[in-house]
């Protein structure tokens, strides 16, 4: 039987506020346990939450970026359950009237483009961390993370493969970083995915029973977990079994998912509006202010790069995969609009390769767009060959000569021999020393010509412009 895969993602993004969502404690990562937990985070008797306006603003900005509805009033609700790293015995989250409702995100898988609908995005606080080692059979609780602002972004079950799921997650990851609401650091848990996975016979309308896989903190794990889960479900169904609705955990070491809890032992969270927090009224002019503060979004830039700079859809897509890369490209292309494609090639080629090799982001690239522009100009005006440009780039990377392109060309002796007299003298010497090849060429052997070009280039130590050498040689031999 042909099976269709149905996936919806829930992504927890940590919002980039300085302080927590309901207290003044800092959100910085990596502090000593419990040094960033104030009385509110510790849930002492009598303390009360106060909403961080910055977290609300970031959520609204996200909603605007995906063309969603911003709910006003938006309501905070308590999700009640007991766990030692949940100090109040409830998590402040949103249930009815989440801040963001609807909206969509365009993704690209290979050559195909697809629109993924979003269900909602709601604000909530993170829990603390339970540490089960080093406490002699007891558990330690670190509440530094408790109260960290999260935006939980829920998609519709519109994804049909692990590749689409990864593309969606990457696009979302790029978007939240692009608009500056989340640092996207997956190692530190700033961007975590839960995947709801089910399968159904192709053509069937009714969804299959789904399983939720929790806490996938890399795109690779997301892909592997979905692939494993899909295979597991299909195997069960093809053997005549049925899927049990449950929450599963992905074991990265074994590459498999296993049961965490079944629907039967699911909590009744007893959601109800938090009486300590008033419904959040979001005035239209606040929304407009935030809309105006948004940068040009990746989709818009991508389209502009195609029309304004004549880039291919693919190139435009790659260059807008992060705001840093797009800004880098734009800084270069603005200087050399007629050579925008060359700028794109450099960024996607040599620069990206070198960044990858060194494990750097483009934001940390030691060679700036101004140098790249100068480098391309020197290729364009014939000062250096394309091959030499790679050497100059290396010099720039090493920080030679204060990253002055011309100084590096000079110092490394990479200038092409553009002077016809010098070149003609060299050509004459080569022809005189290779009489046999001249004879062969005149006898119709094209290979001999290539050999002569090679000889001339060698004689110039590669500093001649091959096109120029070509032209002059043909003139001499054909003449």
């Amino acid at each position: 039987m042909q099976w269709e895969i149905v996936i919806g993602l829930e992504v927890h993004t940590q919002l980039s506020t300085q302080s927590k969502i309901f207290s003044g404690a800092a959100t910085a990562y990596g502090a000593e346990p419990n040094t960033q937990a104030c009385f509110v985070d510790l849930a002492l008797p009598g303390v009360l939450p106060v909403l961080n306006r910055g977290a609300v603003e970031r959520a609204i900005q996200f909603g605007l970026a995906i063309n969603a509805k911003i709910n006003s009033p938006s309501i905070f609700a308590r999700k009640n359950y007991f766990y030692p790293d949940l100090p109040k015995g409830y998590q402040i989250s949103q249930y009815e009237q989440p801040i963001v409702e609807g909206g969509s995100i365009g993704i690209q898988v290979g050559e195909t483009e697809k629109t993924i609908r979003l269900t909602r995005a709601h604000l909530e606080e993170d829990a603390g961390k339970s540490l089960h080692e080093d406490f002699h059979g007891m558990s330690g609780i670190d509440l530094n993370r408790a109260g960290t602002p999260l935006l939980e972004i829920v998609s519709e079950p519109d994804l049909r493969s692990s590749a689409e799921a990864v593309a969606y997650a990457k696009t979302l990851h790029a978007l939240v970083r692009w608009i500056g609401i989340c640092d996207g650091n997956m190692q530190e848990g700033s961007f975590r995915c839960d995947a709801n996975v089910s399968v159904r016979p192709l053509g069937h309308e009714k969804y299959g029973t789904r399983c939720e896989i929790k806490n996938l903190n890399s795109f690779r794990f997301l892909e592997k977990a979905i692939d494993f889960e899909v295979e597991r479900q299909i195997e069960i169904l093809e053997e005549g079994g049925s899927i049990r609705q449950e929450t599963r955990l992905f074991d990265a070491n074994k590459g498999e998912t296993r049961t965490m809890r079944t629907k039967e032992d699911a909590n009744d969270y007893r959601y109800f509006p938090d009486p300590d927090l008033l419904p959040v009224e979001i005035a239209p002019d606040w929304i407009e202010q935030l809309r105006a503060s948004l940068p040009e979004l990746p989709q818009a830039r991508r389209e502009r790069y195609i029309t304004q700079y004549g880039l291919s859809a693919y190139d435009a897509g790659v260059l807008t995969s992060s705001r840093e890369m797009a800004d880098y490209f734009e800084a270069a292309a603005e200087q050399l609009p007629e050579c925008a494609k060359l700028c794109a090639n450099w960024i996607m080629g040599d620069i990206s390769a070198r960044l990858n090799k060194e494990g750097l982001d483009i934001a940390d690239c030691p060679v700036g767009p101004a140098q790249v522009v100068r480098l391309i100009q020197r290729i364009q005006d014939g000062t250096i060959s394309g091959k030499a440009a790679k050497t100059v780039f290396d010099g720039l990377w090493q920080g030679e000569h204060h990253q002055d392109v011309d100084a590096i060309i000079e110092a490394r002796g990479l200038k092409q021999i553009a002077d016809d007299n010098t070149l003609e003298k060299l050509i004459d010497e080569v022809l005189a020393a290779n009489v046999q090849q001249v004879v062969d060429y005149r006898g119709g052997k094209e290979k001999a010509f290539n050999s002569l070009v090679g000889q001339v280039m060698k004689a110039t130590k590669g500093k001649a412009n091959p096109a120029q050498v070509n032209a002059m040689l043909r003139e001499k031999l054909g003449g």
Partner: protein
Amino acid sequence: MFNDSLKQLSKRLASREISSVELTTEFLERIRQLNPRYNAFITVDEEKSLAQARHADRKIAAGEMDFLTGIPVAQKDIFCAEGWLTTCGSRMLSNFVSPYDAGVIERFNQTGAVNIGKTNMDEFAMGSSNETSYFGPVRNPWDVAAVPGGSSGGSASAVAARMAPVATGTDTGGSIRQPAALCGISGIKPTYGTVSRYGMIAFASSLDQGGPMAKSAEDLALMLNVMTGFDERDSTSLQREKEDYARDLDKPLSGLRIGLPKEYFAEGMSSDVEKAIAQALDEYRKLGAEMVDVSLPNSPLSIPVYYVLAPAEASSNLSRFDGVRYGYRAQHYQDLAEMYRNTRAEGFGAEVKRRILIGTYVLSHGYYDAYYIKAQKLRRLIAQDFSDAFTRCDVIMGPTAPAVAFDLGEKSSDPIQMYLSDIYTSATNLAGLPGMSIPVGFGDKMRPVGLHIIGDYFSEARMLNIAHQYQLNTDWHLRIPQI
């Protein structure tokens, strides 16, 4: 001196007739004598109180005297006070020393008042008789066989027995007004959002409101001047201009329209209470007031609505008491689930458990709409009833409680009977309105009767004026129990 009003005490302090240390020592001595009989205080810390008194004396000497500087104030043990044991009447917090001050405590400290001790209360403010306290019941100074009311029974008893000139209370369904009525003192629950809830241990967040308890309306006004004001740490705190609650005390009452809801004067009120209330209303007629019949058709629903919403919020508010970070933790357990179970089974008393169970039930999947949502809708109707009534009158009056103080143990095995003690008071919490109680005489067994005055939002100054004018013309508030 124990019968002095705040004005009189303040005058004595200002004129240096007496120092705060002397005044505090006098009250501490009286507490030492009387508290074993009434059990009004859970914690008395003479050193801490005297240190504050010395600080107040320095302030007075430096000419920085505020109105309450140097005055002893009894604090309900629901308010967190730095360095003080803060138990909320529960075994769960029987070892909890607060590391911070509640917003209300901060205000008293800033003005230089002296914390004379933490008063007994029903456990987590759940009760109408002060019998649910882990620290034992409080006795009514008018009759030690009688309950003082609750949950602010310790504060009411302390003021009635003159162990403190004034006290704080909190009121979720009547917890200031009902004990004030039963102990023959005055108490006011202001409009919701007027007094900061920061550091006031939550019972039902949307209903809880702090307020003063005192011997007279005038003292209440002066207390409110200190207790009220915006607190950015409480999102339900209202941002309003600071007002002087004593500003209208002396205004005449001619033309005052008093609304008498027919529902409050129907069945349920005992005849002794009815008689005292009728006399009080006659007094108001003499003072120039006019009686208007009004109706609060949904008021019979206030008890059922209250006993859905308050436990719902409480069941969640009390989840933080889990034995993990502070407070009581069970001695014996095998695993985490058992630690939670044993801690909460041993740490909470029966009434608290009952309300947690009710609250958990009404919020459960499948019952939420039928109970919680329905109750929220009725809550709006109850509030609407008051708005309609206030188009026809300035204040509403009736009895604070349906009967005088009952005996200890009389109702403790019948929760429904106990809950009906708040039949007249809980509607004002549901509507967020201010309500107060003043003593207007005595009923059976010479136990006090309280008159309930309900005002429109933010009409506290007017209500205090109405109460004060009555007290200028009567002496019920000056009667002192035989001790």
